[in-house]
């Protein structure tokens, strides 16, 4: 694929891929839909490309959205998704199903790549910011979620999520947005179940404080609501 093709809008690329895909192969991939992640990985390790394709198509969406919610950047999300599956190609034989689900394992890998990408982008932002300050035309309001989340409430919530510290943002994205169980989130984050619970509870409190004045739909939120624990 040429460089000019990569710059096409997404729907043109999708059309191109759809037209060049092999119909019998698509059918074979669909037949593997009822297999578990671990079974697909086992088949893929034995050289079954259809199994690997099915596994990718099942898991790339959640991985992409996790990276997107964590970073607020579609570019970072694409890079992280690609890196995660390249990592799976490199280290897939080291995966041990007895230590947890493949999905949680992939989220754990994605978490590390997101962290790495954000550290890189932060350092780049720090090194380039003085030059941009000199040129007023280059200074624009940074709103990474504006084009992605059209709904005003969603944008406010996402900004609040992005402003959370990383440890709290991870649990909110995994448990509330990706709807992982606490056990799977604990496996992905490499921490205890109780840690996930306590972090999520704390993250909700922080989110409510942030959203109290910013989101109209959440104007009734009272983070300091009186609690009776009798």
């Amino acid at each position, binding site marked *: 694929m040429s460089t000019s093709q990569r710059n096409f809008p997404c729907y043109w*690329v999708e059309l191109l891929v759809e037209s060049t895909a092999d119909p019998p192969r698509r059918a074979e991939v669909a037949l593997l839909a009822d297999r578990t992640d671990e079974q697909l990985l086992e088949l893929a390790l034995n050289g079954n490309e259809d199994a690997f394709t099915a596994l990718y198509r099942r898991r*790339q*969406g959640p991985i992409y959205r996790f990276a997107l919610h964590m970073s607020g950047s579609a570019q970072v999300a694409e890079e992280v998704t*690609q890196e995660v599956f390249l990592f799976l190609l490199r280290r897939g034989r080291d995966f041990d199903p007895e230590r947890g689900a493949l999905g949680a394992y992939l989220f754990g890998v994605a978490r590390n790549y997101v962290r790495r990408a954000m550290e890189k982008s932060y350092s780049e932002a720090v090194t380039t910011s003085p030059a941009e300050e000199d040129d007023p035309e280059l200074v624009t309001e940074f709103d990474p979620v504006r084009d992605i989340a059209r709904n005003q409430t969603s944008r406010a919530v996402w900004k609040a999520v992005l402003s959370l510290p990383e440890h709290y943002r991870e649990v909110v994205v995994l*448990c*509330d947005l990706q709807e992982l169980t606490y056990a799977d989130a604990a496996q992905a984050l490499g921490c205890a179940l109780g840690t996930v619970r306590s972090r999520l509870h704390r993250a909700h409190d922080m989110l409510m404080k942030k959203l109290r004045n910013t989101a109209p*739909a959440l104007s009734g*939120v009272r983070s300091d609501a009186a*609690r009776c624990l009798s």
Partner: protein
Amino acid sequence: MTCREFMDSTQELNALELLRLTAEDEGLAAHSRECGACASWLETQQSLAAALQSLSASTAQREASPQVEQAILQAFRTQGFAPKLVEMPKPTGAPLWKLSRVFELGAYAAVAAALIVGVFLGYWILHDRQESSHPRQAQTIAAPEEPESATQITADHGQTEERLAQVEEPRNQLVASHGKAPSVTTVVRVQPKNSPQTSTADNGNYVALMLCDPLICSDEEQVIRMELPATSATALDGSNAGTVLADIVIGEDGLIRGMRIVN
């Protein structure tokens, strides 16, 4: 249901479950109707859950672009899965522990050796002080070595002559005490200063004479063989000869430490 049970139950739920909470769980719904604070708190949580669900729904269709899939599948076709890595033994703390164990044992051995040396030195110093504070008792005298032969006696004679002057005064004292001057015959020997001390009973029948103060008795002693009038030696030997041959041990202060009858 108490408020704490209500809160614990709701904290177990994620956003989606929280939104369906009161419809599915009658107990929680009943408590939220009874308790205004819990109902308010639940309403707040549900509002937040709804907002998070809204965000989740707005991005639910977002996926990686087809180029990513193409790149991944291309990598799979060209490289496949990499072989399983052989896990190298992780550097556990075992070698370090063993090393530290060696150092620990060495430290113990060093401390033990230092203690032993300290005890030995302490004992030695104490013993030395006791030796210096309690000089040789008067009844312990040096053991004069017997001359091995007449040749040796003759060879020592030159030195003997020089030291005779030193014993002149004791001899005069003996004369004064016994009335008749004893004649020095052949041998005068000097006792080495640090030679081993033996008691009188073990040392050739010497009889200790308490003529010196133990505090001032010096270590240097001389043995003089001389002839003594028999009358003065009769009490010791019991013989009736005119003279007897005796070895007299004289200290540097000129006082006699002891004597024995040779013949």
